[in-house]
């Protein structure tokens, strides 16, 4: 069974530029999560989807971050414009349903200069 796929694995941009991350969850998984992991900290949930609907985006900085999950499969997380403090690893996870085990992708490491 293929795991959660993310791309790109690494991205370096300058502040005020925009960037997008892509996540392909495990086939059939209805729930998808995006986490932000800043160096030295644990992951923090940014947004949670159930199929193509948003369950929780209370910690998503909506002035600059956006996410979508068209057709309830792949998801894209965008930052526009990026700030220095957005430097982090962005993790995508999926689960077959809410309250089931979350499977994590390898993450995208973003560096904002």
């Amino acid at each position, binding site marked *: 069974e293929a*795991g*959660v796929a993310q791309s790109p694995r690494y991205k370096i941009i300058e502040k005020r530029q925009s960037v997008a991350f892509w996540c392909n969850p495990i086939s059939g998984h209805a729930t998808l999560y995006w986490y932000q992991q800043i160096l030295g*900290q644990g992951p923090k949930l940014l947004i949670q989807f159930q199929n193509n609907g948003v369950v929780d985006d209370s910690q998503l900085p909506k002035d600059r971050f956006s996410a979508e999950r068209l057709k309830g499969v792949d998801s894209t997380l965008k930052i526009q414009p990026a700030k220095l403090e957005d430097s982090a690893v962005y*993790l995508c996870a999926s689960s077959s349903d809410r*309250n089931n085990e*979350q499977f994590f992708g390898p993450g995208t490491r973003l560096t904002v200069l």
Partner: protein
Amino acid sequence: AQSVTQPDIHITVSEGASLELRCNYSYGATPYLFWYVQSPGQGLQLLLKYFSGDTLVQGIKGFEAEFKRSQSSFNLRKPSVHWSDAAEYFCAVGAGWDTDKLIFGTGTRLQVFP
């Protein structure tokens, strides 16, 4: 509000030695507790979880954890560490009714010497 504390940022052990990683949580009701491991360049992998029942939980890779309500702790243990266990370990609590809204601790980095 729920929170998780991992008091040890970095732990070093010799291969074959026993291991205990500490985790304390703050939550008003019975928590749902998890331990994850993150190897360099990889995503998080679930080691074990506690929802209810037996307070001693067995996980993968020979790990176990014990839930102690009186101490608000969920420490991770392994009797004999292997070099491949070197990684970062995260304790997490499921928030409220939505156990999938995980709140993570800051992690403990484990280094294993041969």
